[in-house]
């Protein structure tokens, strides 16, 4: 019961935070610009068209009324129409979301499978050559511009060596859509050539996106394992003469990795943000590329629609991580 109450308490913060986000995007799109309607109408609209649109969108009414209307529209999933695709923006974004999630999840799997073991080894073999090399790599991972890393990977692996495709999600027809995730759909339909193709297309963008997250995870895991290694109970077990691998496997890892696991949830949000730029580099047909194309075409409504979507997804993910954290970590229940 206490747990449920705590989870509900966290949930109660969700609505004000989301409303806060909408207020911020509202201010950005309606209050800051000199003429918000001209922005929405695009560069080619005539003054008469702008005036007609102003009445049609209700931009001539007082701001509080506009805000209430804005929230009500978004609650119905209405984000307006893209001046370029001529389709509802919410539809465009929903259509492109699976590609973004597939890329983000792939990067997350890579960073966890590579980052955590490397972090553990780095701590166990402290000050070894591996530890020093990893320290350089992690410092680089946090300093490199991901769009540049992506371009360099393209230059090397796609253009020079020809090992991977340059960009895009797949050559030829996508697998029959069941979930919208190409890899999963290919497995479900038993279409192995498509699976291989999708995997090859995914390799470079996932590596690009994973690199900073991986660096964070190596650092965090290393610090966590080192902390545990210097704790009293490990000292006690060493004094009792337990073999090193028993101490490492049974005690150190178990206790160090529980805190790392909660960190992984937070990575998802960071990866989602990085996906915007990574998608732009690899022409990956997700919501990031949609946003970037909309920027280039001055498709104002679409850019704002993306901001609301990305912001809302981010808040939902944070909420889920928070609730899981509360349920998993007993210390959270006490405070």
């Amino acid at each position, binding site marked *: 019961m206490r747990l449920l109450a705590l989870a509900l308490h966290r949930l109660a913060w969700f609505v004000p935070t989301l409303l806060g*986000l909408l207020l911020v995007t509202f201010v950005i799109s309606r209050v800051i610009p000199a003429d918000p309607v001209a922005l929405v109408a695009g560069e080619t609209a005539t003054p008469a068209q702008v005036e007609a649109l102003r009445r049609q969108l209700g931009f001539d009414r007082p701001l509080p009324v506009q805000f209430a209307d804005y929230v009500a529209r978004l609650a119905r999933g209405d984000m307006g129409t893209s001046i370029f695709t001529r389709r509802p923006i919410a539809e465009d974004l929903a259509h492109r979301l699976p590609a973004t999630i597939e890329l983000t999840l792939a990067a997350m799997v890579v960073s966890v499978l590579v980052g955590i073991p490397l972090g553990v080894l780095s701590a166990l073999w402290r000050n070894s050559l591996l530890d020093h090399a990893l320290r350089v790599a992690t410092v680089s991972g946090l300093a490199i511009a991901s769009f540049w890393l992506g371009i360099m990977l393209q230059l090397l692996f796609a253009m020079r060596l020809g090992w991977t495709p340059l960009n895009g999600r797949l050559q030829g027809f996508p697998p029959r859509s069941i979930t919208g995730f190409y890899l999963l759909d290919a497995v479900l339909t038993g279409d192995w050539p498509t699976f291989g193709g999708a995997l090859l297309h995914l390799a470079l963008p996932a590596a690009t996106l994973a690199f900073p997250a991986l660096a964070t995870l190596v650092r965090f895991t290393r610090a966590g394992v080192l902390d545990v290694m210097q704790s009293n109970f490990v000292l006690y077990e060493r004094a009792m003469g337990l073999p090193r691998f028993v101490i490492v496997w049974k005690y150190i890892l178990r206790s160090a990795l529980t805190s790392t696991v909660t960190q992984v949830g937070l990575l998802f949000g960071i990866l989602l943000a990085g996906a915007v730029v990574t998608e732009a580099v690899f022409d990956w047909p997700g919501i990031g590329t949609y946003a970037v194309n909309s*920027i280039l075409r001055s498709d104002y409504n679409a*850019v704002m629609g993306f901001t609301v979507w990305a912001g809302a997804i981010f808040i939902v993910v944070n909420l889920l991580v928070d609730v899981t954290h509360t349920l998993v970590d007993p210390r959270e229940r006490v405070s």
Partner: protein
Amino acid sequence: MSSSKGASTAVWFVLTRLTRDRSALLGFALIVALLLAALLAPVLSTHPDDVFELHPSERLRAPSRAHWLGTDRMGADVYSRLLFGARITILIGVIAVGASLIVGVPVGLVAGYYHGWVSDLLMRVSDVFLAVPQVVLAIAIAQTLGPSLPNVILALSATYWPWFARVAYAETRSIQKEVFVESTAALGASPWRLTALHVLPNIASPIIVRASIGMGFTILTAAALGFLGLGPPPPTPEWGRTIAESREFLPDAWWYATAPGLAIFLTVMGFNLLGDGLRDVLDPRLRRTHTARDE
């Protein structure tokens, strides 16, 4: 305690400790190099006029003795443009982080010092900004205002101040129960005097660390905005935009894309290393990755 002698001793202590930390020294050296590149750009550059001039006949030349890092699509010297780009990078970083400090720290101090609905409101507002990735909101603001240098700086400041508010808030709350704060209040110090002269100097360390790491982070985000076409318009030699321009000439003109990316990398690395070093010296509580047995 706020005498100038005490302050200079503290600065001396930090500096001597920093010089013992090899990676912090490297970071410091990288930042000094960046500053020199920016200040002396007209002297150091081999083709100082190439920021605005076109040389179509010299287009896309590979690195050579005349053009150390090759030339770009306009025939301009990549090395010279990089040096002038350093000025833009510093300008963006310093002003955006400075503005975030000026807004965020007072907000955090006020919210931390007073307990009431104003504090709650201030922190909720900053929570909204922290709940969404900086680059997403910065894209929306930069797109609304239009691509230009002041607008990039504005977009970055408007989205980065909550980090400083958060740090200042948490630190203020944590030292509020300290005896020296309570006794100063009991002596009748006004809230203004108390926060400005007694709380602020004691929470400065984590804010300084955050500012150094924030410089690196802001420069990365600024480069991403430039790459997406939301930065200052051409012919400004902004590094992110230069990388975007270079893409259509790959793989042949590899130098064109490589050089500005390396410049961003070294700059951000400099601020990150310095930030890590400062944290180790200034805030021993956070010394997690370098433990005593690590040295």
